[in-house]
C-alpha cells in the first residue's frame, strides 16, 4: 500500500516541479481585455447601453455580462469587432440598423437657453445665451442626449438623407 502512495506523491511532486519551472520560462503577460475593449468603444459615454459610460460598458463586456450588440452608436461594425475580440457568436437581428440619425434644431422654437449645449458629449452644438443654436452635422453622433434637455422641444432626431456617394446597392433577394 505504501508503495502506491509513495510512487504517486513522488510522481506528482516531480511533474508539479517541472510545470512550475516551465510556467516561469514561458510566462507571457496579456494586456487586460477591458482596456482594449474600451479603446474600441466610441468613448462618448452617451449611456445608451445603460452602463455608466464606455468604461462601464467595457467592464461589463469583459465580464461577459453585456452582449456585443450593447452599443447602439457603434452599429453593426462595432458589434462584429467586439464579438470577434471576445470570440462570441453574434446575432445581428436585434440591431435594427435603420441608419444613423442626426439631431436638428428647429430655429423658430429655440430660445437660446444653452441647456442642450452642456449635455452634448462631443460639443456638436453651437450657440450662445439668447442666440439661436445650431448643430454641426460632422460632430453629432446621434446619441440624442440633447433631445430631452430642450424645454421647447426644438431638438428633433432626423435620419440622414442618402446621397449619391453614400448610396449602397441593395442586396439581391436570395432564391
Amino acid at each position, binding site marked *: 500500500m505504501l*508503495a*502506491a502512495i509513495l*510512487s*504517486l506523491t513522488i*510522481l*506528482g511532486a516531480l*511533474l508539479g516541479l*517541472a*510545470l512550475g519551472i*516551465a*510556467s516561469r520560462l*514561458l510566462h*507571457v503577460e*496579456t494586456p487586460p481585455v477591458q482596456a482594449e475593449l474600451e479603446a474600441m468603444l466610441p468613448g462618448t459615454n452617451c449611456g445608451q447601453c445603460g452602463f455608466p459610460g464606455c468604461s462601464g460598458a467595457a467592464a461589463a463586456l469583459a465580464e461577459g455580462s453585456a452582449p456585443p450588440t450593447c452599443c447602439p452608436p457603434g452599429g453593426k461594425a462595432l458589434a462584429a469587432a467586439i464579438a470577434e475580440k471576445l*470570440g462570441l457568436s453574434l446575432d445581428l437581428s436585434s440591431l435594427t440598423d435603420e441608419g444613423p440619425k442626426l439631431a436638428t434644431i428647429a430655429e423658430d422654437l429655440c430660445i437660446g437657453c444653452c441647456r442642450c449645449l452642456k449635455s452634448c458629449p462631443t460639443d456638436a452644438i453651437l450657440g450662445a445665451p439668447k442666440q439661436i443654436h445650431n448643430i454641426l452635422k460632422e460632430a453629432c453622433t446621434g446619441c440624442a442626449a440633447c433631445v430631452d434637455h430642450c424645454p421647447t422641444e426644438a431638438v428633433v432626431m432626423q435620419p440622414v438623407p442618402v446621397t449619391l456617394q453614400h448610396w449602397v446597392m441593395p442586396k439581391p433577394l*436570395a432564391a
Partner: protein
Amino acid sequence: MSELLLLLISTALVNNVVLIKFLGLCPAMGVSKSMDSALGMGMATTFVMTLASAASWALEHWLLEPLELTFLRILTFILVIASVVQFTEMFIKKASPGLYQSLGIYLPLITTNCAVLGVALLNVQQAYGFFWSVAYGFGSALGFTLVLMTFAGLRERIALARVPAAFAGSPIAFVTISLLALAFMGFSGLNV
C-alpha cells in the same frame, strides 16, 4: 518499415479513433468550426498523444508492473497526460496567442479527451513494445487530425449554406459527421 506504414494506415483510416472507435468526439465537434483552429487542435493532440503513449508505456513497464500497482494505471496516466497538456498550453500561449485564442477552452480539455487516455490504455491492452505504442499513438493522432481537418472543411462550407432553421448550428454538424462516419466504414475489413 512496411509494417510501420501498415500500422499507421490501419490506425488512421481503418479503425479511426474518432469515426470508428468514437473516441474524442467533443473536441471533434467543438474545435471544427474553422480549418486553422482544427489544424492547431490536431497538432496539439498529436503532440500530447505521442508523448502520452511514450510516458504511459514507461510508467506501465517501469513503475506499475514491477510494483504490482496496475490498479493505479488510469490515475497515473491521467496525471501524466494532464501535465503534458498543461505544458502544451503554456507553449502555445507563448508561441501563437492567435491559435491559443481560437482553441480557447478546448486546449486544456485535451486532458479529458477520451482519445488520448483511450489510446494509452489500448497500448497497454495490446501489449505493444515501446516503439509500436508510440507509433500507435502517433497513428491514431494522425487519424484524429485528418478527421478534424476534413470535418472543419465541411463545416466551413456548411456555415455558408442556407440550412433550415431547425437544423442550423450543431444539428447539421452532427448529420455531417455521421455521414462522414458512414463513408469511413468503407475502409472496414481492409485486411492490411
